[in-house]
Each structure stands twice: as structure tokens, then as C-alpha cells.
């Protein structure tokens, strides 16, 4: 009897966490971004965006895990599953939105990084235009600084998205304990 009560309590806690963890993670990520932005008084560096998306992804994956645990408990007990289904679906929708945004951001940041290789001459040279000679940009060689500051964070964003999608679907597909 005590075991049953504690199992029910755990399932209710999981249900609550399934609803709240993604939202809490979202707020934590936004507040962190604001704090860093206010402290540095600059636009957020791409590595900060990586951190923000990582926190969001962890929140959605954990939310899915808790919601699925609550759903499986209800399924095994034959209880009503409306709220647990709702929590699972909420996390699925959030996961789809989050992963789409991260993938698009990754591709966009990579394209921006490539375009930064094109360097236009400074204004002191543009006087040549008046003499009929077009301004020619130069393509800077690929450097390790570019790699670490621009390309690696964009690639890490994509890796976070891929790992997040994998974990989301794996957690969502977790079977009830007696069927594993």
C-alpha cells in the first residue's frame, strides 16, 4: 500500500515536472542571455547562443522523460491519461519548434561565417571608383580563429540539435518498465 502511494506520488511529480521543466529551462536560458547581454553591453556572442540552446534542449528532453514516465505509470495502472498525454504532446511540439530553430540557426550562422571571408577595401581606397576602376573585394584565407569563433559554434549547434532530436524520440519511445 505504501509502495503504491509513493509510486502514485512519484507519477504526479513526474507529470508536474513534465509540464514545468521545459518552461523553467526556457526562462533560465532567457534570463542567462539577458544577464550576459547586460553585463557585457554587447550583442550575444554565438557561443552564448550555443549555451542558451543547450539549456533549452536539456529542458525539453527532461520534460519528455518525466512526461513519458508519468504516461507509462498511468498506462500500467489503467488510469485516465489526458494530462500525461498533454504533457507528452507539449514536449513534442516544443521539441519540434526548438530543433527547427536550432537547425536553421546553425545553417544561417555557417553562411554568415563564410560571407565574412569576403573583405571589402576600406573607404580610403574607394576613391579609385571615381577613376572608373571597380572595387574588388578579397577572399581571406581560412584561419583557425575563423574556425573557433564562427564555424565550430555553428557546427556545435547542429550537433546539439541532432543529439536533442535523438534523445527526444528515444525518451518519448521509452516503454513501461515491465515491457523493457
Amino acid at each position, binding site marked *: 500500500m505504501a509502495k503504491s502511494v509513493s509510486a502514485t506520488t512519484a507519477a504526479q511529480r513526474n507529470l508536474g515536472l513534465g509540464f514545468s521543466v521545459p518552461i523553467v529551462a526556457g526562462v533560465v536560458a532567457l534570463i542567462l542571455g539577458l544577464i550576459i547581454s547586460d553585463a557585457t553591453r554587447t550583442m550575444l556572442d554565438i557561443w552564448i547562443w550555443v549555451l542558451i540552446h543547450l539549456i533549452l534542449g536539456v529542458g525539453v528532453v527532461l520534460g519528455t522523460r518525466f512526461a513519458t514516465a508519468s504516461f507509462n505509470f498511468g498506462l500500467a495502472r489503467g488510469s485516465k491519461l489526458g494530462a500525461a498525454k498533454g504533457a507528452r504532446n507539449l514536449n513534442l511540439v516544443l521539441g519540434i519548434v526548438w530543433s527547427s530553430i536550432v*537547425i536553421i540557426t*546553425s*545553417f544561417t550562422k*555557417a*553562411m554568415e561565417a*563564410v*560571407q565574412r*571571408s*569576403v573583405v571589402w577595401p576600406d573607404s580610403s581606397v574607394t576613391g579609385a571608383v571615381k577613376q572608373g576602376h*571597380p572595387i*574588388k*573585394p*578579397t*577572399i581571406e584565407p*581560412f584561419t583557425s580563429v575563423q574556425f573557433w569563433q564562427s*564555424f565550430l559554434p555553428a*557546427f556545435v549547434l*547542429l*550537433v546539439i540539435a*541532432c543529439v536533442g*532530436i*535523438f534523445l527526444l*524520440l*528515444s525518451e*518519448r*519511445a*521509452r*516503454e513501461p518498465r515491465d515491457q*523493457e
Partner: protein
Amino acid sequence: MNDAGGKRFGRGQVALALPLAGLLVFWVFVVLAQFSSLYVTYGANYDNYSAQQNQFHLDIYLVLAGLAALGFSAVTARKLSQGLDETRLARAVNGFALVAVFVVLIIATIYGFGTFMSNAFQTSVDSNGHSIAPNLMVRVLNVYLPILLDAALMVFVILKAFVGRATADETTEGESANG
């Protein structure tokens, strides 16, 4: 969980990871294609559109290669998901592989139309404003061949993802009916 179940669970995770690995490869190829196109647009033939049109565009083939990798991984994931037991993971993998296939087909369609629209009605002109005929071999390589390869890729993905699956299902139903 017995060995067969453990093996199947591993296979499901491999099928889940394959399209994601394909996406990573696609990203790398797209970045390389962007770099390659920089040298066409801002290189020696900067501000000379007709010369750029008569230059071989490697970026077109790099994007196609990335798309092929993504397509291959998606159809392989779909094939792997066919042999899984009916579990939640199998349904998730099936659904995800189907989404991956659709994404490949959508991107390939956009790529094909984009290649067509960016080249079909473009003409190069010389300094006197007379139209210049493009180099035929380069035009074939930059426009016609990529469109053909793109169409071939789409047909391959569709056949592997849907037709092969339908044949396998019919065979299974036929065997069940005959006992």
C-alpha cells in the same frame, strides 16, 4: 530483454541516428559549397557575369553530394525501421525516417527549381550590349547535368523509400494468406 530484443533495440537507435548523421554531412557539404561559390562570385571574374557563367560551378555539385548523403541516410533508416518489432521506438523511427525522406524530397525540389530559375532566362551581354552565347559544355555541366542528377536522386529516394517498402508488405501479406 533477450539477445534478439537487444539487437533490435540497437538497430532502432541506429535507424534513428542515420538521418541525423546525414544532416551533419549535408551541413559540411553546404558550407564547402558556399566557400566554392565565393571564388566564383568574388574571384578573378568579379563583376563579370558572363565570365562567371562560363566558369564551372563546383558548389552546385557539392550541394547535390550533400543532398545525396542525406537522401541515402534517410532511405537506409527507413529500410532498417521495416524489420523492427512493433514497439514505440519502431513507430518513432518509422515516422522520423518518413519525415527525413520528405525533407530530402522538398530540398531536392527547391534545388532543382532554383537551378532552373537562376539559369533559364539569364543572358550574358558584351560591352556593346550584344547577347553572348554561353559555352555549351560549361552550360551543360552547370545547369543541365545537375538538374538531371537531382531528378535521378529524387526518383531513387522515392523508389527506395516507398516502392520497395510496398513490395515487401505485399510479399509478407501473401505469405500470411498462404499459411
